[in-house]
């Protein structure tokens, strides 16, 4: 590429197209430019296990965690529709210390809103990995348990617990917002009891989870998610 043409002062359409194609090839994939063995970097990087504190310290930390649940604002499926009433005046989840956060880095609860298509699952896994531990996953609706009504669809997975650890499941299609609240109450209780170690479980069984994920997701490049 000629330097002088950088901003395309005077160029022909065909040339520009050709350049564009080249560029598109270069720019499309965020993991392009990485060495072949590093291509799966965003997928394969193994997190480290972090042990919980001991005794009363962990109990206190768990209490704080249970009282401040920040959910990731990622509506992965139809479940997102009942999150909105929950966030708004009628059900007002803020009362329970639950807030929606727009970025996975700051969130600690991931609500899998029902079915997950393969394309979304990739983002779910990535978002889950971006979240900081301890992190909790709520499976909302039947689809997360055993595929729900899309059990025979070619594009939706059947069980989310094959790909990321799930702490609490909520039955229903759609579950009412109250059921979701009930799920949060259960989650809080489990956190306080120190039962929500999904993050460490994911690390312990990392190879198993990755194998499952890789079985259906072959290309780990996500131009929208890789950082």
């Amino acid at each position, binding site marked *: 590429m000629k330097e002088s043409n950088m901003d395309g002062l005077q160029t022909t359409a065909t040339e520009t197209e050709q350049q564009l194609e080249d560029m598109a090839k270069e720019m499309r994939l965020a993991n392009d430019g990485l060495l072949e063995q590093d291509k799966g970097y965003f997928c394969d990087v193994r997190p480290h296990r972090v042990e919980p504190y001991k005794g009363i310290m962990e109990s206190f930390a768990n209490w704080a965690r249970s*009282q*401040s649940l920040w959910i990731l604002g990622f509506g992965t499926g139809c479940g997102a529709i009942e999150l909105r009433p929950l966030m708004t*005046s009628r059900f007002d989840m*803020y*009362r329970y210390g639950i807030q929606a956060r727009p970025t996975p880095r700051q969130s600690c609860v991931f609500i899998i809103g029902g079915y997950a298509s393969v394309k979304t699952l990739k983002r779910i896994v990535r978002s889950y990995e*971006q979240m900081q*531990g301890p992190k909790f996953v709520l499976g909302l609706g039947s689809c997360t348990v055993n595929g729900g009504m899309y059990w025979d669809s070619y594009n939706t997975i059947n069980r989310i617990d094959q790909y990321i650890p799930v702490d609490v499941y909520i039955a229903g299609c759609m579950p009412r917002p109250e059921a979701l609240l009930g799920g949060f109450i259960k989650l809080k209780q489990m956190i306080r009891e120190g039962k929500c170690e999904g993050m460490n479980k994911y690390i312990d069984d990392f190879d198993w989870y990755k194998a499952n994920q890789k079985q259906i997701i072959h290309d780990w490049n996500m131009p929208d998610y890789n*950082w």
Partner: protein
Amino acid sequence: MNEIMTKAWYTLISLFVITNYGLLLGGTMARVRAKVQGRIGQPVWQPYIDILKNNFKRTGIYHGVMFYLGPVFRLAGGLGTYLFIPAVYGSLVFSNFSFSGDLLLVMYFIFFGQLGMALGAGQSGHPYSPLGVSRGLAQMTAFEVPFALSVIAIASQYQTLSITEIVAAQQGGILNWVAFTNPLAMVAGMISFLGMSMGNPFSVVIAPQEIPIGPPTEMQSSFLGMLQTNRAIFNGAKLVLFMNLYFGGATNIGVMVIKTFLIYLYTVIVDASFPRFRTDQSIRFFLGIPALIGIAAVVLQML
């Protein structure tokens, strides 16, 4: 030496008080905002738990030295702002390190925190962060104009750059407040305060919808905890500053609480009533009428 030590202890107490006050104020205002929205809202102490929770996070991701230092700078900015503002006029404990010329220092510290944040966010690698940073800096530059004009007007009105002296000059009745002696400066200042407190309509920097969520996108765990602590302190500092500049300061804690609460309430009232401007719109806004008012205030003082 001893005096300095005493002063330091007092400052620590003052800091402790303002931190908690800032946190509680944040919690209370969340409830007020919730009330407008027709709901009950989070518990008043929710900010404490959030900060605790964030500090109890087991993992944190780190993008480089600047990323790590960003929240530190921000906290330093917040602390710095507060340390040079007398919170309660005449109080030994709450007068902090106020000295002549501190007004300039404070204005610098307000900037400093933002810049630190910008550096940190810039290194996070997330495209939303630089977008948010560029918006934040641009908007900040814009609202600094009316604010600076307003400060210049006040400084020339009282012929001093010491906040303590400005507060002292406003004592002796409501009518001595800048709000009444120099209403134009007050108006310009209070409008820029809206921008400074980053509520609507000037919240595009940290808007969750437009770009989630601006500079702090990648901030998490204890970084975020630190940011939240700073936000409490910085909020308190700003409120106290504006109280001191325009509303006669406070002679005791009670007055301070009432006045700052009302000033904060004013931003919340505006916040709940409006959507947010785009960056270019808010810049245009600040450089428009508020800047003109500021200029008018300065010109009036000059005359």
